[in-house]
């Protein structure tokens, strides 16, 4: 077992543990904090994949924006759940069965697949090539159209969120 493998196991354990805490934590605020830890763990997992750009992006977007948004929402709506001690709904055994069944199914499928053995591909000198990623996103031969559609989606989501949450009818 190499050092990197140990590091990965640590990261995975921490991430999965905090993910469990996200769904198990009693208070929403704590769930959000655990979520942040889980997201940082995922960023670390990206780092072990030598995708440093996405590792940093993960922190910037998820921790810097999405998690803060979630915390905001949790704060704004905190009164609602205070008098209800149960955090899971009545159907949670069925949900556990569904999630567990899915995991079992996935693991079973993995056990029959032999494509794991392929070694990681070589990266150019100096890690991933961000310039290539940028070109792929903006070149007409690449993914220009999906990229533009994604940006359009963001704008639409932004306007929609403002409209929905802004209560413009007043």
């Amino acid at each position: 077992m190499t050092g990197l493998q140990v590091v990965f196991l640590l990261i995975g354990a921490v991430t999965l543990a905090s993910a469990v805490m996200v769904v198990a934590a009693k208070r929403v605020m704590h769930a959000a904090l655990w979520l942040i830890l889980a997201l940082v763990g995922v960023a670390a997992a990206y780092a072990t994949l030598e995708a440093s750009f996405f590792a940093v992006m993960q922190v910037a977007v998820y921790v810097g924006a999405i998690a803060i948004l979630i915390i905001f929402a949790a704060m704004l709506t905190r009164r609602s759940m205070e008098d209800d001690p149960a955090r899971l709904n009545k159907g949670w055994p069925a949900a556990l069965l569904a999630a567990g069944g899915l995991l079992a199914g996935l693991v079973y499928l993995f056990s029959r697949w032999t494509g794991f053995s392929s070694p990681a591909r070589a990266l150019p000198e100096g890690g991933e090539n961000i310039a290539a990623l940028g070109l792929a996103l903006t070149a007409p031969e690449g993914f220009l159209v999906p990229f533009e559609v994604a940006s359009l989606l963001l704008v639409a989501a932004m306007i929609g969120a403002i409209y929905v949450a802004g209560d413009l009818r007043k």
Partner: protein
Amino acid sequence: MIPLSWYLIFAACLFCIGLFGVLARKNAVTILMGIELMLNAVNINLLAFWRYLWAPKADGQVFVAIVIVAAAAEAAVGLALIISAYRRRQTVNANEMDMLKG
């Protein structure tokens, strides 16, 4: 080197935990957190496949970028909906949002 299967199992576990959160938690905000976990699991898979089967071509990374964009959009709209629902119904309990009428 870490085997590819570790990443896949890791992502599968994360996905299923997120799925459980989505299916079982009462609070709509926590449900959204579960969705974020699931999306992250997907991203891990995408990046792992990119790293092991596709690098150094950037095609696989593009999908990750787009998933992140979709996640940001989803969080913005979802939280806006939750806040809007909270403002009208004074609740964020997903079980209580079962009326078609607003």
